[in-house]
């Protein structure tokens, strides 16, 4: 037997894979099981959103924004209409602001529930997925009651919303919140404090804060590394400055600050904060007409604007350039998952292949948003 010469192996975690959250191809160079480099290949879902937005009118762009981040469609709409209303200097009625915040926060809870459930599925836990999807279905029922759609709504329009809330929506939503709050402790018992889950996620894939800022990582991924940055508090839009809520950050519960468990834990705590915001909004919602500020024809003045809002994945920014016609000259969507995926190579070096799956799940990416 001679000396066995070790060499690098290239493993392809291909576009079709149950754990890659969509069509993502990872070219992984490994030395046995230990990863030495990862090259993500994206573009398998490039649906030409930006080309479409240069050829349809401003209000027709809104269904396309739904389909980019399809897990948080309300928040994608929210970001676009906030940017348009800043560009056109439209002031919406107060009821519209409250409805938008309610829908945005409900969708944040739904998106986080799916992210956490699928993360459990990635590391091997099947039951929390079923429990979390069961509760997510109740939120989708409420959306369907309001605007008719379960997943892709086209709900928020420039200057207002498409449908007013039904008469008993406040009661239904309050009942849901009363049912949902004890469920969070049930999820914690099932998944969060589970010894196997903690072993797989604590201390794995640590993202230091300065690396995160340089890579443009935002949202729960950045907050999991200890940086207190939330667009709702630091550059407030709509009426978020009137609500009282905290920004949870990662504190190294079971391991180092910025590991996978911290990012997961921040999302779980954010669900609780969203419930807080919802209760305040449902109590104080005023009455009014939701369609009165919707302009008949959207023709913004010449100029450009960049505005960001907080989607469940991070800072969702829209760069809109207008040339005075009803059709946009350029709409660019700065998606938070794009930056989150770019940091995958940096934080997975030295870990094993199964840890790469755990790290990828903790970043919570949606390929529709990355590829647009």
């Amino acid at each position, binding site marked *: 037997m001679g000396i066995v010469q070790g060499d690098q192996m290239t493993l392809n975690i291909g576009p*079709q894979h*149950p754990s890659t959250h969509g*069509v993502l191809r990872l070219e992984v160079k490994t030395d046995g099981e230990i990863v030495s480099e990862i090259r993500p290949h994206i573009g*398998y*879902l490039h*649906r030409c959103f930006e*080309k*479409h937005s240069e050829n349809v009118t401003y209000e027709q762009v809104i269904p396309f924004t739904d389909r980019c981040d399809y897990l948080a469609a309300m928040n994608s709409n929210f970001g676009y209409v906030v940017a348009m209303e800043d560009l056109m200097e439209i002031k919406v009625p107060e009821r519209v602001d409250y409805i938008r915040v309610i829908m945005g926060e409900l969708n944040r809870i739904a998106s986080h529930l799916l992210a956490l459930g699928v993360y459990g599925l990635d590391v091997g836990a099947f039951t929390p997925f079923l*429990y979390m999807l*069961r509760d997510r279905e109740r939120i989708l029922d409420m959306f369907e009651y309001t605007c008719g759609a379960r997943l892709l709504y086209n709900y928020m329009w420039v200057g207002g919303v498409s449908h007013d809330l039904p008469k008993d929506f406040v009661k239904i939503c309050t009942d849901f919140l009363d049912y949902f709050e004890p469920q969070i402790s049930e999820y914690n018992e099932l998944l969060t404090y589970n010894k196997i889950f903690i072993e797989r996620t604590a201390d794995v894939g640590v993202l230091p804060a300065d690396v995160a800022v340089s890579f443009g990582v935002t949202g729960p991924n950045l907050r999991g590394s200890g940086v207190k940055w939330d667009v709702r508090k630091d550059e407030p839009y709509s009426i978020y400055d009137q609500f009282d809520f905290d920004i949870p950050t990662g504190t190294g519960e079971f391991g180092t600050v910025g590991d996978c468990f911290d990012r997961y834990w921040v999302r779980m705590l954010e669900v609780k904060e969203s419930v807080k915001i919802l209760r305040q909004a449902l109590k104080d919602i005023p009455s009014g007409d939701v369609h009165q500020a919707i302009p008949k024809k959207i023709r913004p003045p010449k100029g450009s604007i960049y505005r960001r809002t907080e989607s469940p994945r991070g800072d969702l920014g829209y760069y809109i350039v207008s040339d005075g016609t009803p059709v946009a000259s350029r709409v660019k969507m700065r998606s938070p998952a794009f930056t989150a995926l770019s940091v995958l190579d940096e934080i997975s070096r030295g870990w094993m292949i199964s840890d790469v799956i755990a790290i990828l799940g903790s970043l919570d990416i949606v390929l529709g948003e990355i590829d647009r």
Partner: protein
Amino acid sequence: MGVLENRFKDNVIVASLDKFLGWARSTSPWYFQFGLACCAIEMMASAASRHDLERIGMMPRSSPRQADVMIVAGTVTMKMALRVKKLYEQMADPKYVISMGSCATSGGPYWQHGYHVLKGVDLVVPVDVYVPGCPPRPEALIEGLLKLQEKIQTERPLTRKTA
């Protein structure tokens, strides 16, 4: 059935072999979870607690070698089209394809200016059932799967196929 009528008790069934095979083959098709975009979320929701796909015999499989039905859920782009064809060829016969959602049927909302979007997955693989919607409700997907089961039941695998 004149000579067989009223000859046997109720615990004896007489039917053609094709019917038995159709019943056996159609009632547990394992699907290949090929979720690409938003329709994949509705496919996952129809496999989850409320609309359970396991009760009609469908189980998700991640490998094409173990699957009978490929549900193409979502937009197929040019970059992905070559891989869809490869995965379809890796499935073992008999295989079926369900095209879920309007993007897989005909390009969906991206038909007009999508330079990178394939206008319908039936340009690369043969499709058996089309489920419309954007995204289709889980109930619509279940109806599409039941229609596929009906289609499988009408097949006659034992008949020699003439050229």
